[in-house]
């Protein structure tokens, strides 16, 4: 009979990122495991809290039905050798399916077949595999061992419950046996007994556990809204702490706490950061946008404890704000110049020198970028001054207490020192954008500094051999590269990546950094890495992969130019000019790499007008294509080469018998292909 199957792993508090993995992966994992065992469920849902990962699969049959299966193997002609004896291939295939070679059949395609009878398998027989498969199937960000066991998981597993309908099924995880006893909310109801799998959500709800992450978020947001309303304000979450808070509570409630008025003199960003970072509180804003002297916190405790919990949280926040007041006063005494002077005592990276070293590189790179961008004198000067002080706030007490305030703090201290406003703004903007779709620098000095900041980081980290692999990107280099692309897209300055990477590399070498990659290797690794970010953005816009590849064939060095070409190719996908250029490129591409071209084109060896016509067209069009700023115009020009190319292929055999003529024609074809290259490798287009 089909019933609901429950598997619950009762855990010690799971990290929020582990909960997110379970929310995403647990249901598909169980669905796959069940299907592989012919136990197809009607639906599967993952239920995840910090103390449990559960899956509820509805309509799971009590047994996998018996079935007859015909499996195909090697071809019949490989089944016997010349003497008529069974070959190893045939014997192996038969043995694998528990048959003798004589029992094998042959299908219409001439392949050996084995007819396998599978008997019915009760669910009980698979339960342990399902539990083990679930644990192994979740790709946790960090695993651990505990006790004397060898199992690895995000946190220790302390209880296990596997039920099918009303039946408790046996399984174990490192000495923990499946039982009906579940853990409820740590304080509200530590334990409960489950009678039926179908009761799981409601029974736990009664035990103070909201088992669906989405439900908890909904409850939290509703409670925050009503608390905020009571203060005639709206709640805010600029640091996106709720994503984590959802996985820090099983039974969310919201409490409000007071902030002493004297703290409201602190810069607003400091207040908000003190609330959000570490404490995960939510600030409130009134109708006019001003901060209220109130914070909201999501708690997991019993209502009777509210007074103590509120007082405790108020006290903690006051302590942090006291630190901020103290830091601000101390930093004001020192000033930004004194902080900048201390950067030679702070390591940026053990192999990339101190922050003073990094600052020296940023100043140089910002200058190079300003020159490339043709930045006006004032902007250039402001950018250089901002670069000189960019990292000073990392020596401040404030950033020591609140790391998130880097940049913001530097801006405030630059203002306090009476520096020009564009310098202060650029110091803050150097960290923009801090993610996909986030604000980019709104001032040119800020944009130049932000580009320099990212280039230095990319080149430094790549050069010491720490490029991102798979999901490992500890220095967030993908974000840095995407930032370069976004800033350029906003500002439109040219970026010659190979030149800039080489310049950044030379600066590191000049400082005596101990590097793994030389300049060429750095260019070879980093340029495609940045262009990959462009392609990712193009893909999200709907530009297909073949178009991206074709555009990459042009050998781009500038991210914006690459994007423009890919978009032009995509926009022209139905245009005649592109179809013709594509056809020409394909015809040229058929002349294989094995053919050796003449060193230079020799008009004396032409013996057909079609050759002369193509050579003439090339001489005129190739420089125009190469020089065209607008990729659409380049495409139009490239299309113009299609007729002479077609005429050539129609009129002559390129691979002529006379070796000299042949080499000359191959040269002509290669020159044509080269002339088309600025519009990309059109042979990549799927048409």
């Amino acid at each position: 009979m089909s019933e609901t199957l429950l598997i619950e792993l009762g855990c010690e508090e799971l990290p929020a990122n582990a909960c997110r993995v379970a929310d995403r992966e647990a249901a598909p994992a169980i669905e796959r495991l069940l299907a592989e065992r012919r136990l197809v469920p009607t639906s599967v849902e993952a239920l995840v809290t910090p103390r449990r990962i559960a899956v509820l699969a509805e309509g799971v049959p009590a047994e996998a039905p018996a079935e007859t299966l015909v499996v195909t193997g090697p071809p019949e002609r490989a089944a016997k050798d010349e003497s008529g004896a069974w070959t190893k291939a045939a014997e192996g295939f038969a043995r694998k399916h528990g048959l003798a070679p004589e029992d094998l059949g042959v299908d219409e395609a001439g392949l050996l077949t084995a007819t396998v009878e599978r008997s019915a398998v009760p669910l009980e027989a698979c339960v342990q595999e399902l539990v083990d498969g679930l644990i192994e199937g979740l790709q946790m960000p960090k695993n651990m061992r505990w006790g004397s066991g060898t199992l690895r998981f995000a946190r220790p597993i302390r209880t296990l419950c596997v039920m099918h309908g009303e039946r408790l099924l046996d399984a174990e995880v490192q000495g923990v046996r499946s039982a009906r006893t579940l853990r409820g909310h740590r304080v509200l109801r530590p334990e409960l007994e489950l009678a039926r799998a179908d009761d799981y959500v409601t029974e736990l709800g009664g035990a103070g556990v909201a088992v669906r992450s989405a439900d908890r978020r909904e409850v939290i947001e509703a409670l925050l809204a009503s608390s905020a309303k009571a203060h005639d304000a709206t709640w805010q979450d600029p640091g996106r702490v709720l994503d984590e808070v959802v996985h820090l509570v099983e039974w969310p409630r919201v409490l409000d706490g007071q902030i002493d008025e004297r703290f409201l003199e602190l810069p607003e960003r400091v207040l908000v950061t003190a609330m959000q970072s570490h404490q995960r509180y939510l600030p409130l804003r009134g109708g006019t946008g001003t901060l209220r002297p109130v914070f909201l916190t999501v708690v997991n405790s019993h209502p009777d404890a509210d007074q103590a919990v509120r007082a405790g949280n108020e006290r903690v926040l006051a302590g942090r704000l006291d630190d901020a007041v103290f830091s601000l006063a101390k930093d004001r005494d020192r000033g930004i110049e004194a902080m900048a002077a201390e950067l030679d005592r702070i390591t940026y990276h053990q192999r990339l020198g101190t922050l003073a070293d990094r600052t020296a590189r940023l100043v140089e790179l910002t200058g190079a970028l300003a020159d490339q961008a043709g930045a006006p004198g004032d902007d250039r000067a402001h950018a250089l001054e901002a670069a000189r002080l960019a990292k000073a706030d990392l020596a401040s007490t404030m950033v020591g207490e609140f790391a998130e305030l880097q940049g913001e703090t530097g801006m405030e201290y630059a203002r306090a020192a009476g520096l020009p406003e564009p310098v202060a703004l650029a110091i803050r903007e150097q960290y923009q954008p801090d993610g996909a779709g986030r604000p980019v620098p709104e001032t040119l000095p800020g944009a130049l500094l932000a580009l320099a900041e990212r280039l230095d980081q990319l080149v430094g980290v790549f050069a010491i051999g720490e490029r991102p692999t798979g999901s490992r990107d500890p220095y967030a280099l993908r974000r840095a590269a995407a930032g370069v692309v976004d800033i350029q897209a906003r500002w439109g300055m040219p970026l010659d990546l190979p030149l800039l990477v080489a310049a950044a590399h030379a600066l590191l070498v000049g400082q005596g950094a101990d590097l793994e990659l030389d300049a060429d290797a750095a260019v070879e690794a980093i340029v495609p890495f940045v262009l990959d970010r462009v392609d990712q953005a193009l893909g999200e816009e709907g530009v297909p992969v073949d178009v991206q590849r074709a555009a990459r064939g042009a050998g781009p060095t500038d991210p914006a130019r690459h994007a423009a070409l890919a978009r032009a190719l995509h926009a022209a996908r139905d245009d005649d000019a592109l179809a013709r250029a594509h056809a020409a490129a394909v015809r040229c591409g058929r002349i294989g790499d094995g053919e050796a071209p003449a060193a230079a084109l020799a008009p004396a060896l032409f013996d057909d007008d079609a050759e002369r016509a193509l050579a003439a067209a090339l001489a005129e069009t190739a420089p125009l294509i190469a020089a065209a700023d607008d990729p659409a115009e380049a495409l139009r020009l490239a299309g113009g080469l299609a007729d002479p190319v077609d005429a050539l292929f129609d009129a002559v055999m390129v691979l002529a018998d006379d070796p000299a003529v042949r080499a000359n024609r191959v040269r002509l074809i290669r020159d044509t292909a080269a002339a088309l290259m600025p519009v990309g490798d059109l042979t990549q287009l799927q048409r």
Partner: protein
Amino acid sequence: MPTAAPKTFQDLILRLQAFWAEHGCAVVQPYHTEVGAGTMNPATLLRCLGPEPWSTAYVEPSIRPTDGRYAENPYRLQHYYQFQVLIKPSPETIQDDYLRSLAAIGIDAAQHDVRFVEDNWEAPTLGAWGTGWEVWLDGMEVTQFTYFQQAGGIDCDPISVELTYGLERLAMYLQGVDSCWDLAWAPGVSYADVHARGEREWSAYNFEVADTDGLVRAFDHHEAECGRCLDAGLPVPAYDQVLKCSHAFNLLDARGAISVTERVAYIGRVRALARAVAHAYLGLEPA
């Protein structure tokens, strides 16, 4: 029935000691050489290695020269106290045991918001890391809770669990005071009575007076001595030399006497010693 909160700092220590002693921990007492944290006491860092079961609890004065503030900061000190528990293998009921230890010092989890918030620990100089939480009490971090995965560059097997209670902070909460200097240490004796003068003088010594040339020589000497101990097959005395190197390094750091490149080199030297000692302690081939 909830227990009343301890009224003094010493009573807090006594209660935790009694609680964990009843749970089978050997109360081994603080170590005799300066350590930056209770973790560095050999009762934790060496005894977490190898297969033998081991349960211990002790208070540990932790020495962090750069954190000195001349007794002018309400809770930042160059000399403060941790209460340390280490149990190997980690018991199944350790979270509940921990919550009962809070009850023993007058904190009823049901009357507060107690949360286990992910916080993984790493000590590169010791070649050690673990997974666990910081425990929040109404938003305040009161305990570091760690399952040791590796120490001295060696995979732990079985796994030990370590609890580190921040005693000053807990006591401030229990006594309702805003500065550790105002804590009652014993009836009629304040924390300031016991430690304020020392904190001022040690801050001055650490930041202004300590003989840097002598410390550089001391580091070299203890490093060499560590090697001699290992050559003589004496990993436990060798470990003391690692602690002395580490403390000399911390003092040099407080004196601002270490450049960035030197700093990296010093950390590397301490780590190499810690690894060598850990391997020798287990009778393994040198790493």
